[in-house]
């Protein structure tokens, strides 16, 4: 879910092309003009000058820190500015790989165990699934005292009832973003997606995410997105197959965002942070939580079993939980933060916290905002199969 940056991916394509052309030019005997971007600035040496003083300050034993920290995250789901600050402060080089959906993350760890990541960012139901699969390590809270900054409403949720395995990160909804200039009238519910008006047919983007997209279809049909009834799942599958003719594509949220900006789609199922970035580039883009309800999610930082640098990972988590850092990250990313202390101190943009489409009043929405639940065995297989069939159907 949830991705972010100020430049969209296809803006990189021309740059890459230019690079390719430069390569060709040099290969053909022309002047070689390919410039290689310098690697991320190394942390200033000064951070290592007074380790004792800093250790006293923040309780971090710098001698135990590793030189690298490897993170597996949703693409563009953490502000580079924050990473740079951490690197500068602790002299740790952070390496980030990205995944596109929870199931792919799970598949990666299932395939051959932990490939060497120190931190991963699964969502609620996937945290539960990974805990049950024995893929996560317990977090040593002694190293992460800043967990106190997280609001109690974000702790001890169903997927990690004793708050042993995850540090809450962002939360949010899965709703609809649309271009008000190109859509007649307002988009208010899933009905607008599944019974599309003439003008938006063929210009709808859905998420390439089995639980989210099947979940939306289930909700439109009046069922729970956590339905375990084979008939209901079948009905949702048939709806999606029938509806496929109106869909421009099934995208991950970053591609959906770029397509909204470029105009390839005018309506897209997406997350608020992506919609916000799209709106920054094209002010006519608006995000809504469908009135008939939506998925609510909360992502968590987890340390996978076999993480090579657990202590450094915990230091990183504690850093991310600092109100100033959490607020900076939230302001840049546009997702609702779980760091209540940062909000209380007024560090998070009021334009964000007061926007009811970004920070919905969860109580007022009641059961219309629902977490996705983790399934096992047969039910999971039903969803897997339904989603494959939606993909294969012509």
């Amino acid at each position, binding site marked *: 879910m949830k991705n972010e940056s100020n430049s969209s991916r*296809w803006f990189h*394509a*021309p740059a*890459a*092309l230019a690079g*390719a052309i430069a*390569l*060709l030019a040099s*290969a053909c005997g022309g002047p070689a003009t390919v410039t290689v971007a310098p690697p991320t600035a190394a942390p200033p040496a000064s951070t290592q000058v007074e380790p004792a003083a800093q250790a006293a300050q923040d309780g971090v034993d710098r001698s135990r820190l590793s030189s690298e920290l490897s993170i597996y995250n949703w693409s563009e789901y953490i502000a580079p500015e924050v990473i740079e600050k951490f690197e500068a402060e602790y002299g740790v080089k952070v390496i980030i790989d990205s995944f596109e*959906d929870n*199931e*792919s993350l*799970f*598949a990666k760890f*299932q*395939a051959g165990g932990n490939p060497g990541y120190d931190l991963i960012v699964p969502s609620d139901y996937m945290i539960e*699934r990974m805990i*049950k*699969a024995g893929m996560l390590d317990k977090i040593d809270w002694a190293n992460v005292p800043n967990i106190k900054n997280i609001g109690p409403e974000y702790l001890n949720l169903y997927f990690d009832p004793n708050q042993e395995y995850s540090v809450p990160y962002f939360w949010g909804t899965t709703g609809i973003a649309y271009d008000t200039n190109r859509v007649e009238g307002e988009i208010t519910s899933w009905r607008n997606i599944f019974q599309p008006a003439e003008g938006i047919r*063929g210009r709808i983007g859905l998420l*390439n995410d*089995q639980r989210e997209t099947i979940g939306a279809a289930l909700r439109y049909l009046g069922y729970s997105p956590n339905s375990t009834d084979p008939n209901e799942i079948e009905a949702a599958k048939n709806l999606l197959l029938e509806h*496929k003719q109106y*869909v*421009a*594509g*099934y*995208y991950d949220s970053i591609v959906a965002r770029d397509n909204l900006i*470029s*105009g*390839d789609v005018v309506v897209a199922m997406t997350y608020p942070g992506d919609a916000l970035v799209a709106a920054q580039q094209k002010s006519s883009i608006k995000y809504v939580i469908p009135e008939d309800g939506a998925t609510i999610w909360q992502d968590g930082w987890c340390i996978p079993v076999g993480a090579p640098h657990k202590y450094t990972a915990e230091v990183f988590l504690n850093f991310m939980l600092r109100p100033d850092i959490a607020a900076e990250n939230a302001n840049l990313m546009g997702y609702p933060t779980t760091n209540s202390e940062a909000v209380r101190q007024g560090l998070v943009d009021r334009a964000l916290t007061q926007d009811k489409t970004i920070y919905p009043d969860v109580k007022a929405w009641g059961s219309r905002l629902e977490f996705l639940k983790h399934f*096992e*065995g047969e039910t*999971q*297989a039903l969803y*897997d*199969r339904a*989603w*494959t*069939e939606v*993909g*294969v*159907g*012509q």
Partner: protein
Amino acid sequence: MLQTIRERKGLQVLGLMFPGGVWLIVFFALPLALIFAISFMSRDDLSRPALPLTLANYQQTFDLLYINLFLFSVGLSLLTTLITLLIAFPVALFMARLPKRWRNLMTLLVMIPFWTNFLVRTYALQFLMRANGPINTLLLGLGLIDEPVQLLSTPFAVLVGLVYGELPFMILPLYTSLEKFDWSMIEAAQDLGANALNTLLRVMLPLTAPGILAGSILVFVPSVGSYITVELMGGGKINMIGRVIAQQFGQSSNWPFGSAISLLLMVVVTIAALIYFRIGRGERGAI
């Protein structure tokens, strides 16, 4: 003494076979055996391949849905092969007719795209075909269309991507074939009164058949299992075998089913290769 030489020779052969053999066993035979085994397994509660053994994965592929998927993948790949052949033949012919010093340059030009990452090239194609990309802008500007045409996420887009990506694999074998072509044959045919079409169909095509066949198999096999092109040009809406396999090993965590489809894909490819060898032998017989 003779015997020791013979023994040494045996050792030599073994020694020469060793690297290739190990490679084949480690990177081909073992994974294949694994895939074969997994394709008969079921899944446990955490979606891992597990016992008991079952035929369900193969039964599932005989669902009309997946039969259509195979037919679509094979059909689109055949079309790709045909179109690349139609484009590549004149190009290869042109190259082969050039003076020798120009030929190398042309070969280089055909190969240059390989120096650029395939992914980047496919993104470039995607960029060209966007709703407000250069192609639509041009068509709008010329007044040929009133509003942007949806080019991406269509079978057409995937076809364009495949043809673009596979074209060099058709040009090069054709060129190799045509370069060795004895042009006096054409003169002979013309002297004997064959018109241009007859010359092409009855002289050139049979004599360049090995190149055509090699090119076709080089294009068809990667096309039928292609993944990246389908993913990027198809926008998640168009599916071919390769993408469904990737989905089973990723998102769906259904290794057994993915393995079963993989093995069926291998059957398709093997059939294509058998046809290739059979026709190839026939052609050689004809010559």
